[in-house]
């Protein structure tokens, strides 16, 4: 069994806990170091301000030579986030480097929040509103900010409730 990846993840966790970049937090699941939960706080002075967006990172043994799979658990409205929570971010795909660690990944995602790339849209509606109707874009994002304060399970329950009422 290769433990290189696990050793690196322990170092990533150490760095994240001793010298945490502002507005992000993350830790491995207690029973599985290959599975991490993370939270990105919406950056101030952006529509995402005050949001607590949860993510899950899944590593395999090829880390850090391959990037982890990163997925938002919180519902997002962002030009580069797919409906299933997966992201379109170059450093997690063709511009990955093994020198990146968990802190670097989360910091990049945080900066993607206030600096979307409308040229590679994962959510066409969000990309269009971002380009053409900023007011409506901000309104839709603010709705996800409020959702983000709930537990992802609670969110699902609420969506089922409102679907049942409709």
């Amino acid at each position, binding site marked *: 069994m290769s*433990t*290189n990846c696990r*050793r*690196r993840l322990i*170092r*990533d966790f150490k*760095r994240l806990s001793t010298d945490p970049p502002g507005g992000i937090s993350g830790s491995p699941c207690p029973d599985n170091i290959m599975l991490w939960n993370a939270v990105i706080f919406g950056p101030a002075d952006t529509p995402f301000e005050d949001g607590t967006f949860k993510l899950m990172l899944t590593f395999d043994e*090829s880390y*850090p*030579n*391959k990037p982890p799979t990163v997925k938002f658990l919180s519902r997002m409205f962002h030009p580069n986030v797919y409906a299933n929570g997966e992201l379109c971010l170059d450093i997690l795909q*063709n*511009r*990955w*480097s*093994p*020198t990146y*660690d968990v802190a670097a990944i989360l910091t990049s995602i945080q900066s993607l929040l206030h600096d979307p790339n409308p040229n590679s849209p994962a959510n066409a509606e969000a990309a269009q509103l971002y380009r053409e109707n900023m007011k409506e874009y901000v309104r839709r994002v603010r709705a996800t900010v409020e959702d983000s304060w709930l537990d992802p399970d609670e969110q699902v329950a609420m969506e089922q409730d409102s679907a049942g009422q409709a």
Partner: protein
Amino acid sequence: MEMEEKEKDNETTRPSNARLEVCDQRVKIKKWHAIAQWRWDTGNNDPEDDGEGDVCGICRVPFEGCCPSCKMPGDDCPLIWGECTHVFHMHCLLQWIGTASSKQQCPMDRRPWVTAERKVD
């Protein structure tokens, strides 16, 4: 390579014990213990600047340690320098270069990786 001597056991000799050839010698070295310290020449003269010394950017283990695949630091787990001046544990870099997604690029600057003969200043 840096060498230093440590742990000299000194003993002050009493005048009555002083022999002719050591009559002006105040201390007599009973034994000494040599300690050698080595360090890769990575061009960083201030290895304490981040408290942990210089680390390999890929595995984050200090250069003086070994890559995660090896057990012993030293010549069996050497460093590798690129023409771009970046340096890594050789095993870490070769593993990355061996993946298709690396496109044979340096992990630091994405320039095509060209191994240098030795450290590039």
